[in-house]
């Protein structure tokens, strides 16, 4: 037993002082605390680390060497065509972890503890989505390196490439909020996972990610071209390897605007819904 006693802090932080500035300050600080906590978890759960690194690499190798030979692309080499698609597909799959993480926190009662603490109410969702955003940065760096190793050669310069990465991250962030709703609605993390994949599969595969749109039946092409996932793939492809690679005749600006509009619209819908769900879920 210790004999030292620490003097209780003289509320230097004034936890319940009101005012917009101080609320905002605590929102930021609590969000950072939880972001750190969620990222630490990623490094300590083998499955999470696997999903963040090994799985994306496997997808790159699979499409590059197994399916790639059978898929014909006109304007760019298949590996150049494929990589932007794989990036978006990977972060989209990764956003499912937002739902799993939240469902798990609810299930284990950690959110119960958070609710009894004098912390910012918004920090739980912000901390979770921010952690997933940061994890995505890491994932894209890893995949870029692996892509380069198997022959991926961006043609448009560093700034344009980074703009493409930015588009992917924003889109993934919007998806994270969508999956936050799923996670907050699921009774447990297993169900959250099961509920999430049927939502993400059609979007990722009926898209411009892996095969040229022209190879699909015409009744499918409309959806496959303009759904949010596809326009983001096309925007990235234009930004990373040039607009001709999209095989659509559209300009880079067109796809970038389309993707940003979709991302913005999804955020406008998902964020309020997720917050509402968090408040009503006890």
């Amino acid at each position, binding site marked *: 037993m210790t004999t030292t006693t620490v003097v209780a802090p003289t509320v230097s932080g004034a936890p319940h002082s009101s005012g917009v500035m101080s609320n905002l300050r605590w929102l930021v600080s609590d969000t950072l605390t939880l972001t750190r*906590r969620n990222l630490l978890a990623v490094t300590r759960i083998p499955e999470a680390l696997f999903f963040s690194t090994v799985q994306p690499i496997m997808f790159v190798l699979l499409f590059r060497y197994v399916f790639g030979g059978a898929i014909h692309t006109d304007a760019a080499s298949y590996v150049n065509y494929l990589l932007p698609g794989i990036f978006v597909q990977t972060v989209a799959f990764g956003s499912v972890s937002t739902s799993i993480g939240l469902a798990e926190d609810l299930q284990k009662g950690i959110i119960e503890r958070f609710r009894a603490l004098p912390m910012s109410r918004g920090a739980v969702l912000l901390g979770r989505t921010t952690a997933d955003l940061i994890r995505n940065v890491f994932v894209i760096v890893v995949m870029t390196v692996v892509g380069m190793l198997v022959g991926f050669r961006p043609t448009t310069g560093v700034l344009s490439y980074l703009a493409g990465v930015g588009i992917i991250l924003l889109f993934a962030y919007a998806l994270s909020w969508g999956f936050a709703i799923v996670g907050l609605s699921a009774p447990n993390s297993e169900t959250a996972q099961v509920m999430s994949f049927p939502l993400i599969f059609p979007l990722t595969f009926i898209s411009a990610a892996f095969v040229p749109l022209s190879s699909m039946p015409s009744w499918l092409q409309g959806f496959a071209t303009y759904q949010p996932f596809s326009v983001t793939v096309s925007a990235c492809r234009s930004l990373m390897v040039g607009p001709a690679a999209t095989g659509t005749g559209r300009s880079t600006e067109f796809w970038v605007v389309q993707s940003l509009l979709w991302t913005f619209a999804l955020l406008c819908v998902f964020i309020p819904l997720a917050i509402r769900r968090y408040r009503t879920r006890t």
Partner: protein
Amino acid sequence: MTTAIEVENLQKTFTGKRVVRALDGVSFAVPEGTVFGLLGPNGSGKTTAVRILTTILRADGGSARVLGHDVWKKAALVRTLIGLAGQYAAVDENLTGRENLQMVGSLNHLPRAFVVTRAVELLDQFNLTDAGDRPLKTYSGGMRRRLDLAAALVARPTVLFLDEPTTGLDPQSRNDLWEVIEQLVGGGTTVLLTTQYLEEADRLASTLAVIDHGRVIAEGTPESMKADLGATVLEVGLTSIEDAERTGAILDTLGTHQALTTGTLVELTVDDGPQAAMSGLRALDAAGITPQSFNLREPSLDDVFLSLTGHRTEGQATDGDEGGNEDQSPRRRRRKRRIEQLEEAMPMATGEFS
């Protein structure tokens, strides 16, 4: 003496697939610096009461105050004054013990330097210093509960809520945890404790309320309750139902209450165990009855219920039924949680988001 916790006519109904009146007009008061035990079986409303008092859940009616502050209207303030530990307030398995304590400290908006020192101090106090930098996944059930309790104490709360702190622990860990809680109380913290174990309530609490179906059915000191109940239970097992009925009739005069006969088992609460045992054996011998088993045991929550309501706690067998492997069996935990979470469909507007 000032009142630390004040609950008046608290009501809460969950409307889900099934409408459940979790709290049906509960009232009690806890003076500052004392330990109050809320004793009741699963589903009696204990956890709901704690969740309302810790600002997690909103009551439908009545009032709940902590240190004079309404727990709903002044939720932000109340959260700075309380600590919560127990069956559902979990710790993060992926973080180390130290990281868990520091995280809770940061979320309490305590200065960083204080949080770091406080974590060291708590790990030491709870004998977790050696395990402090290991992830919680490697902790035993008892260690986890100790860390859970430590996490509730990071901000030095004035009022502490312990929701079934030892459910699912082995006797040794339970005893260790009791010692820690006793030390806390010596330090002047007000504690509200929920439990299914009469033994636990008896050991820790200075005042008890027995709760059943969302109502307080008895209140008093553990001593007064045990005095009403009889200190010991005499249990006699017979070979036939006829023998059991005769035995019940013979033993009736020895107990504080009527003997209870269930099948071939007769139970009787008595004041003086050994004395009652001797008289009972003599009387049975004289009547030519040979018991198959003959035991003296401590009264359980079940016995309290029996003496208060005339019926046993519903929907559960004996004491410890839910307890045994709570930590080991996620499915059972989840099922239990689902039952308690009928409120899932309940709209709960938290006052301030962000």
